[in-house]
C-alpha cells in the first residue's frame, strides 16, 4: 500500500459555527514521506494534526490510515489506531513531576495490560525498550530525574522517546521546535529526520519557519485560514508563493 494516510474533505468548525478552523482539506501522504505543514498561527495546523488521530473530533470529512477509516472507528478501535500514530507536542506535554522513565513508559500504555498499568507495572521488555529509546535520543543518563529538571531540548527528546515507545508507523509533530532556541531546534529536527530515514517512519510535522521546512521536508503543505493554499516540493516555494502563504507584510526569518 503506497498511500498510508488519505484525508478527504476534512472540516472542523469550532464554537457553534463561528470559527471555521479547517475547510474542506484533502491530501494524501505516502509511506516514508517527511511532510511539513506550514502556515501562520491560527491557520489550522494543530487542528489538522489533531483531527488525524481524533484528539479533536472533525466536523466533516474522512481520514483513512493504512486503509482503515479512522473517522468511523469505535472508541476501542481508535485506541488501537492511535498506538500506531506517535505524537510530539509543542509544549512537550510531559508530566513534570514524574521521572523521565515514567514519562517515556507512558508511551507504551496502549500496548500494556490496563490492569497491570494500574499498579504502574510494566513488562521487562518495555522497560528495556524505554532505555533503548532514551539511548537513541542520548539522554539515558537522565532516566531517573524529574522531567522538569531537564532543559527544553532534552524534554522534547523525552517526548520523542515516548512517541518511539509506540513503535509508530506515522509520527506527527505539532510545532516540535517552537518552544526551543535555534541551535536546539536542529538537534530535535535531526532526530525526526533520523527516524524518517532509518526506520522508514512517515513524519508529518507543522513548523513555523520556512527555512526549517525547506531543510527537512520532502513535501510541503501550506495552510491559510483552514484551507490548503500550496502543496508541493520545498523548492517550489518562491517569493510570490511565500507572500501568498504568509501575507504581504511577511519577512523571511532564517533559523540557521
Amino acid at each position, binding site marked *: 500500500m503506497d498511500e498510508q494516510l488519505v484525508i478527504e*474533505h476534512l*472540516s472542523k*468548525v469550532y464554537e*457553534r*459555527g*463561528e470559527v*471555521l478552523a479547517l*475547510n*474542506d482539506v484533502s491530501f494524501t501522504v505516502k509511506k516514508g514521506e517527511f511532510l511539513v505543514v506550514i502556515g501562520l498561527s491560527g491557520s489550522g495546523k494543530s487542528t489538522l494534526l489533531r483531527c488525524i*488521530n481524533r*484528539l479533536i473530533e472533525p*466536523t*466533516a470529512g474522512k481520514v483513512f490510515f493504512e486503509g482503515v477509516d479512522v473517522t468511523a472507528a469505535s472508541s476501542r478501535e481508535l*485506541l*488501537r*489506531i*492511535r*498506538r500506531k*500514530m*506517535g*505524537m510530539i*507536542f509543542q*509544549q*512537550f*506535554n*510531559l*508530566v*513534570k*513531576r*514524574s521521572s523521565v522513565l*515514567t514519562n517515556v513508559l*507512558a*508511551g*507504551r*500504555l*496502549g*500496548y500494556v495490560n*490496563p490492569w497491570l*498499568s*494500574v499498579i*504502574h507495572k510494566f513488562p521487562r521488555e518495555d522497560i528495556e525498550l524505554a532505555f533503548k529509546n532514551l539511548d537513541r535520543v542520548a539522554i539515558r543518563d537522565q532516566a531517573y530525574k524529574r522531567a522538569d529538571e531537564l532543559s527544553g531540548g532534552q524534554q522534547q527528546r523525552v*517526548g520523542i522517546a*515516548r*512517541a518511539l*515507545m*509506540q513503535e509508530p508507523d506515522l509520527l506527527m509533530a505539532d510545532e516540535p521546535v517552537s518552544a526551543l532556541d535555534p541551535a536546539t531546534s536542529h538537534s530535535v529536527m535531526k532526530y525526526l529526520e533520523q527516524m524518517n530515514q532509518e526506520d522508514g517512519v512517515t513524519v508529518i510535522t507543522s513548523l513555523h519557519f520556512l527555512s526549517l521546512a525547506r531543510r527537512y521536508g520532502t513535501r510541503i503543505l501550506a495552510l491559510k485560514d483552514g*484551507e490548503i493554499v500550496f502543496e508541493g516540493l520545498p523548492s517550489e516555494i518562491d517569493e510570490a508563493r511565500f507572500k501568498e502563504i504568509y501575507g504581504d507584510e511577511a519577512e523571511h526569518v532564517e533559523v540557521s
Partner: protein
Amino acid sequence: MQDRYHAELMMDEPDFRKRFQSIRRRALVLLTDVIALSYLWTLASYCWNRFVLGTGSYITLPWWAMIIIAIEIAAVWENFGVSLGMHLLGVRLSSRSEESNPANHALRYLLWHIAPLSLISFFFSSKEEPWHDRVTHLYAVSAAEVEEKRVSWYRTSWKNALALIGVLTVLTAVGVTDMDLYALFTRASRTGRIWTRLLNPNFSLLGSGFRLLIVTIYMAFMATIFAIVVAVPLSFFAARNLAQGIIGRAIYTVVRVAISITRSIDAIIWAIIFLVWVRVGAFPGVLALFVHSIADLTKLYSERLESIDPGPVEAIRAAGGNKLQVILYGIIPQIINPYLSFTLYRWDINVRMATIIGIVGGGGIGQSLYQYMKVSDYSSAGMMMLLIVVTVWSIDYISARLRARLN
C-alpha cells in the same frame, strides 16, 4: 465544492440567536441598574431615618414605588449617560458617526417606555436594530466600537454611583450593627475578674483535660480520613473540564450544587442536626466535621483538577491510553501533592472546628470548656483554653511545615 461547503456551514446560522442576545443584554443592563438604584435608595433612606430622624426603619416608600422610581431613574441614566449596567455589560449608546443631538436623547428616553413592544417586534423582524433605536438614530452598540475620551472619575456617573454605594454601605453597616465605641472604651474594667481567673488555670484538671483533648484530635482525624474517601472520587465529577457529555454535565451540576449547599451550612448546624440524629457525644461531632469536610475538600480538589496542565492528558490519549490510564498517568501525578496539602490543611481546620463543635454538645474538650464557662468557673475554663491553644498552635505549625515540603 469548497464554496458550497462553506456556505452550508456559515449561512445556516439562524439570526434569532443574535437578536435574542441583543435583547437579553438590554434587559440585563436595565436589571443591573434597577438593582443598583434600588439598593442605593434603600441605603439612603435607612441612613436618613437612622442618623437624621433617629428612627430604625429601612424604607420610607412602599417597595413598588421604589422600584418604579428606580426604573425611571435608570431610563434617564441609560439614555443620557453611561449607566453602571451599561458599563458592566459593555454597552454604549452611539449615534454611529452622525452628529449627536440632545433632542434625539430626549426622544429616545420617551420611546424607551414602549421599548418592550419595540423589542418584541425586533425579534421577529429582519432589521438589524430595533425600531426605537432607528427612529432616534441612537443605537445600543458594544463598548468596543466606541472611542471614548478619558474622563476623571468624579465626572463619570457610574463611578459616582459606585462611590456613593460604597459610602452608604459603610454608614448603614455602622447603623445596623449598633456600633457603640463609647461602651468599648469605658467598660473594659468589668472583665478584670474573668481575665485573672483565666490566666490562673486550674492545673489539677491537666489529666482529664488531656484525655478530652485526645478525643478532640481523634474526632478531627476520623472526620478527615473518611472525608478523603468520599471527596477524592467526588472531585472528578465536580471538575468542569472533566465533565463531558450531557450526563457528565448533569452530574457536575448536581455535585456542585450539593457541595455548595453543604458548605454553606456551618459545621455547628450540622452538629446540632447529628446530635438529634445519633445522640449527644463525640460521634455527632465527627459526623458534622465529616459532612462539612467532604464539601470543602471536594471543592478544593476539583478546583485543582480544573487547573491541571491538559498536555499530559493529550499525550496519553494520543498514545492510545484508555480513560483509566489517562487518569492514572496524565492526571494523578499532577494532583497528588496538592491533594495531600489540602487534606493536611483541612485536618488542621478540623482540629480547630472540633473544639468549637464541642460547645453545642459535640463532645471533646470544647464541650467541657463551654460547661466551665457557663458556671463561671473561669480558672478551669482557662486550663482547657491553655490546652486548646497549645494543641492548635502545634498542629498549625506541623501542618504548615508538611505543606511547605509538599509544594
